[in-house]
């Protein structure tokens, strides 16, 4: 088959754009594996930097994972009922509330963090605990779960399904858990995927809210960029990617399978 010149022009353009975006990532990963970045690959490869990062920063990795999971749980517990209530009410108040919820996303993270510090900073126990960062993450990621869940709830014939459940004797709480939640799985999963990703990579808010004892991965990364060798920082990035990419692929696969099931 003979391809037109236009096809090849487009192909080259696409490849260039891909290269433009991917080369920095690859270079950064490579930098984490070279013995000396300024000498380059010819100087030889090593895993020493990775080991060094792990020794120095492994607590930040665990804390980030702990935060991401707790954040997803909190956002689910708050967000799914909230989405349900907002869809059910559907009046001027609920729309205003929906806008308000998005505010922490629109606002610079530093500003919301400052607001949190001003309000709750004097509670020392909370201020020193990782839960303080969790509060910030939940605030920031909440709309990313509520929005897709609301979209799914509006698409489904939920009100009739609930009426059917009620006619079979199910009270409001039973209806919520046996009808509403199972039929919104796809939306909840999409939301959780987003929340975990955002929480793992969140820097703005976290940087303001953290203490030396509660450093997350992105904060540690900034730290290492500022204070350690370039190779260490790059190795750190490598660890972050190793952590988040499989997680993203897994979650993506689950939600793709669920939404396929939904469409049948």
């Amino acid at each position, binding site marked *: 088959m003979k391809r037109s010149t236009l096809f090849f022009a487009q192909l080259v353009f696409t490849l260039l754009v891909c290269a433009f975006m991917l080369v920095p990532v690859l270079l950064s990963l490579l930098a984490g594996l070279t013995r000396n970045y300024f000498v380059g690959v010819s100087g030889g490869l090593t895993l020493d930097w990775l080991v060094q990062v792990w020794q120095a920063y492994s607590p930040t990795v665990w804390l980030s994972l702990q935060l991401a999971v707790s954040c997803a749980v909190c956002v689910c517990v708050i967000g799914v009922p909230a989405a349900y209530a907002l869809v059910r009410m559907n009046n001027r108040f609920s729309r205003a509330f929906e806008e308000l919820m998005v505010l922490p996303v629109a606002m610079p993270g530093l500003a919301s963090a400052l607001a949190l510090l001003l309000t709750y900073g004097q509670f020392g126990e909370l201020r020193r605990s990782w839960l303080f960062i969790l509060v910030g993450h939940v605030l920031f990621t909440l709309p990313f779960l509520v929005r897709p869940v609301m979209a799914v709830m509006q698409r489904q014939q939920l009100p009739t*399904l609930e*009426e059917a459940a009620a*006619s079979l004797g199910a009270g409001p709480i039973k209806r919520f858990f046996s009808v509403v939640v*199972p*039929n919104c799985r796809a939306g909840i999963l999409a939301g959780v995927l987003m929340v975990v990703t955002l929480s793992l990579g969140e820097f703005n808010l976290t940087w303001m809210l953290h203490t030396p004892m509660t450093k997350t991965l992105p904060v540690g990364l900034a730290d290492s960029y500022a204070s350690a060798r370039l190779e260490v920082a790059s190795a750190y990035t490598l660890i972050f990617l190793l952590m988040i990419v499989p997680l993203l692929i897994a979650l993506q696969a689950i939600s793709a399978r669920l939404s396929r099931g939904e469409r049948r």
Partner: protein
Amino acid sequence: MSGTTIRLQGCRKAFTDGTVAVDNLNLTIEAGETLVILGPSGCGKTTTLRMIAGFERPDTGQVFFGDSNVTRLPIERRDVGMVFQNYALFPNLNVAGNIIYGLKIRGLSPAERNKRCAELLELVGLQDHGQRHIHELSGGQRQRVALARALAPRPRVLLLDEPLAALDAQLRERLRSELDQLLRSLRITSVFVTHDQGEAMALGDRILVMDRGRVAQLATPRDIYQQPANAFVASFVGNLNAFPVIEPTAHGLKVSGGELPWKGIQAPTTVYCRPEHLRVMDDGGHLRGRLVGQFFQGAQSRLLVDVGGA
């Protein structure tokens, strides 16, 4: 399964925009009876059903099931079975899961549940479909599952909200006669809402015809057809010819197209009759007109005749 009497006493329901959906409705549905509520859209038939179900609370008036006042009870505590127009089956559960849902809530043991589920699958003719997913079923099968689900917990009352409206004509006919047999054999008190007069005639022990939130007539299908209470009922159930009376004459009434015999004292303003009560004659009939159209309908033909006038 024995039935429960349903009684509505002076029920009224208005919506927030001020429209009165149902006004001062008094109604008794006998135990074991199938009552069909018939009327055009917006006549209040669905609101009436929803008040019986417990989805809507009447603004004034009361609802009784047997001797107990259920006006303030939410639907989940009224012990009713409900079948919806769009089936409303739970897509996250399979057929058996849907049927068992209500049994689980009533706390039946797994063995009892499965036994009852098998009974119902057999009742609606879906013995081998228990493990099927809802999306694998046809519309007719879905509605059968919905019926089985509603009947499984042995409700006191069965409510059906236009259950056949989403099906195609042939299937609707078949499911209608199945439903008729089922309701008769179960002897459960049931309320069936429809805008289809054929369905109403076939299924109802009695028909409640509603018009703008009020009772137009409540009677057996035969009486509704043969002795309609007013022009609305007559024209909504079956076809109707109307002849406005121009003036009374010495032996009858002058109408467009001729003169009708009449011996009464006070002359009516309009004379109504069913199409099958008119006979086409070569000559010497009471009315005369010009054949405008002829529609062949198999067992019968419909003739459109212009007798002049409006």
